[in-house]
């Protein structure tokens, strides 16, 4: 009798399990296409254009995405993506040592090579006296020129339309909205920077080439980090620079340390932060952060 009860119990359990597993059967409808982006601006643009049609992701990057080195753990995500939206213009140095399906790479600056700016003063190295081997440099913070950002957004829309042709019209309409906002941003920057035209400026790092070109800024770059006090040589070089280029405003990628701010102030130079927005920031989305940049530039005139 006990054996029979046990048997019945087992059969019952089996039937229950059937029901449970039946209920948790995998989702029948197809998974969304996975789109990976290499930095935050592209992530933002893609999300705005794609809506919820695709799953937009950005790798977990601490710090500047331009310095990102994907590891073995990142490869599965990269290779599984249906589309990888990249900035191009040499931004993704990791492309040189990763193996990816080229058909899935969407280079957003591929068709606007004529708009890209070369970098000057790049440190080269060579092996032996036989010959010089150069590393050609291109400035890659292209999105800082809203007109170039529009081109990149258009490239994204085209890429998404190939990926999900059925949603091409939806992508187009969302692109139009994004373009309008970028045009507005361009206008506001134009206004803000018009007052700084011809005024000598210094950039803490050579990452504002497109901003400089777009708004005709008279600027020179140094290689200073916000949290690292420049050494004696750097200050001497800075003085020499100021002699030829008497800047009163220094634009920083990130908030400089109070020591640096003070020392600059002693020399009559104001520090203002213009966040290139390469990575996500808790303070807000792309346009919030860019508007904040404009606000700070505007405020610096005082």
């Amino acid at each position, binding site marked *: 009798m006990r054996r029979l009860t046990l048997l019945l119990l087992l059969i019952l359990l089996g039937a229950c399990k059937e029901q449970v597993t039946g209920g948790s059967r995998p989702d029948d409808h197809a998974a969304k296409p996975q789109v990976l982006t290499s930095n935050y601006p592209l992530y933002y643009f893609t999300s705005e254009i794609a809506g919820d049609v695709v799953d937009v992701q950005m790798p977990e990057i601490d710090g500047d995405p331009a310095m990102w*080195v*994907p*590891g*073995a753990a990142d*490869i*599965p995500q*990269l*290779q599984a993506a249906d589309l990888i939206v990249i900035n191009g213009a040499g931004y993704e*140095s990791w492309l*040189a*040592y*990763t*193996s*990816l*399906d*080229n*058909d899935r790479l969407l280079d957003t600056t591929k068709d606007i090579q004529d708009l890209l700016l070369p970098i000057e*003063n*790049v*440190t*080269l*190295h*060579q*092996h*032996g*006296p036989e010959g*010089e*081997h150069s*590393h050609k440099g291109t400035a890659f913070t292209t999105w800082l020129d809203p007109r170039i950002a529009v081109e990149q957004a258009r490239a994204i829309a085209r890429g998404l339309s190939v990926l999900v042709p059925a949603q091409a019209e939806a992508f187009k309409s969302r692109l139009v909205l994004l373009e309008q906002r970028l045009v507005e941003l361009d206008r506001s920057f134009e206004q803000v920077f018009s007052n700084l035209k011809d005024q000598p400026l210094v950039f803490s790092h050579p990452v504002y080439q497109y901003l400089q070109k777009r708004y005709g800024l008279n600027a020179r770059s140094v290689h200073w980090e916000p949290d690292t006090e420049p050494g004696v040589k750097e200050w001497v070089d800075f003085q020499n620079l100021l002699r030829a280029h008497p800047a009163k405003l220094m634009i920083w990628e990130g908030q400089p340390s109070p020591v640096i701010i003070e020392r600059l102030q002693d020399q009559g130079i104001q520090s203002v932060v213009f966040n290139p927005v390469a990575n996500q920031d808790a303070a807000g989305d792309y346009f919030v952060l860019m508007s904040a940049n404009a606000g700070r530039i505007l405020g610096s005139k005082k």
Partner: protein
Amino acid sequence: MMTGAFFLGWRYLRFHRFKSLVLLASVTLMMFLPTATRLLVADSATALTARAQATPLLLGERGGELELVLNALYFHAEQPPVLPYSALGDIEASGLASGIPLYTRFRSRGAPIVGTSLDYFAFRNLQLAGGRMMGLLGEAVVGANVASEQAVGPGDHLVSSPETVFDLAGVYPLKMQVVGVLARSGSPDDDAVFVDVRTAWVIQGLGHGHDDLARGDSSASVLSRNEGTITANASLKQFNEITAENIRDFHFHGGTSGFPLSAVIVVPPDDKSATLLRGRYQNHESGYQVLVPGNVLDDLLETVFTIQNYVILGLMMLSLATIAVVTLVFLLSQQLRRGEFMTLKRMGASRSFVATLIASEIGFVLLGSVALSALMSWVTRHYATEFLLSLVTL
């Protein structure tokens, strides 16, 4: 009565084991060799042809067509003349086909290292049996046979073999990390080590990694500094393994457009594109050739089949001689056994009984030969073709 004759026949063969085995072996070989020859040639031809048929077009530097095909499809050790990486771009830019690069110059303990792109695996329909696909410079995915013969799997390492013992300049052993093992495909891919083509260039020394010369701690390796250019001296140590820590320091000097490839697998979407492409490269200024691997192999196989026929003819002659010798042995044996047959007849055995006895001995040998020959043919079918194909890669 017939059972008795078979019993006596069987006992006789068993007792004279050595003679029986020699006869069995001779007749078996006589049956097996022509069959095996046909099987091997047919199966090898099928396998070779299948792979060639699955490869629409090959782009290579002008030179030996067979050499190009054997190297690109079967990773034969003999290298065709190299063509530049820009040739791949030309194919892509034509809009008529996509291209898959191949660079097969190097080996790792005898296994060909195939520098290629991820597209190769989808093209050849290769699946992973374990681990993952290569994703970073210096990573490798190995074929099933490489994994078993060299006892490597995801997480292990393989080192590229230097080309010569005194190879001091450039081609140096690179330690590659195995990240994946391919499922058995029954093709030369089972015997290969796959890397990104850029990893193959690193092996060649066209790309390398070393400490950043701009950093202070590398000053011992600096020969001179001149404005924006730093010249390194010979003491600069180059990395022989690409790791997470040094991968950013790996670079190629000069543009990669001139870097070498053994061939490009060209995949046109349709026959029209294929024809147009072939037409373009007919007398192309670049001097490259676009060929149809199937056609090249057909020419080769025609020769092979002709040779096969001669071989089989020779084997048939040998068979005739074997039959003659075997018959002689039987006749001599029967003569020696005359007394035995006389005794049987005197005891009451009929002529047909004695004839059946002799026939059963012949029959057992023949049956045994047929069975053994069939078994050997089956084994040949299963294992020899793979072995023969592996000879092509040598």
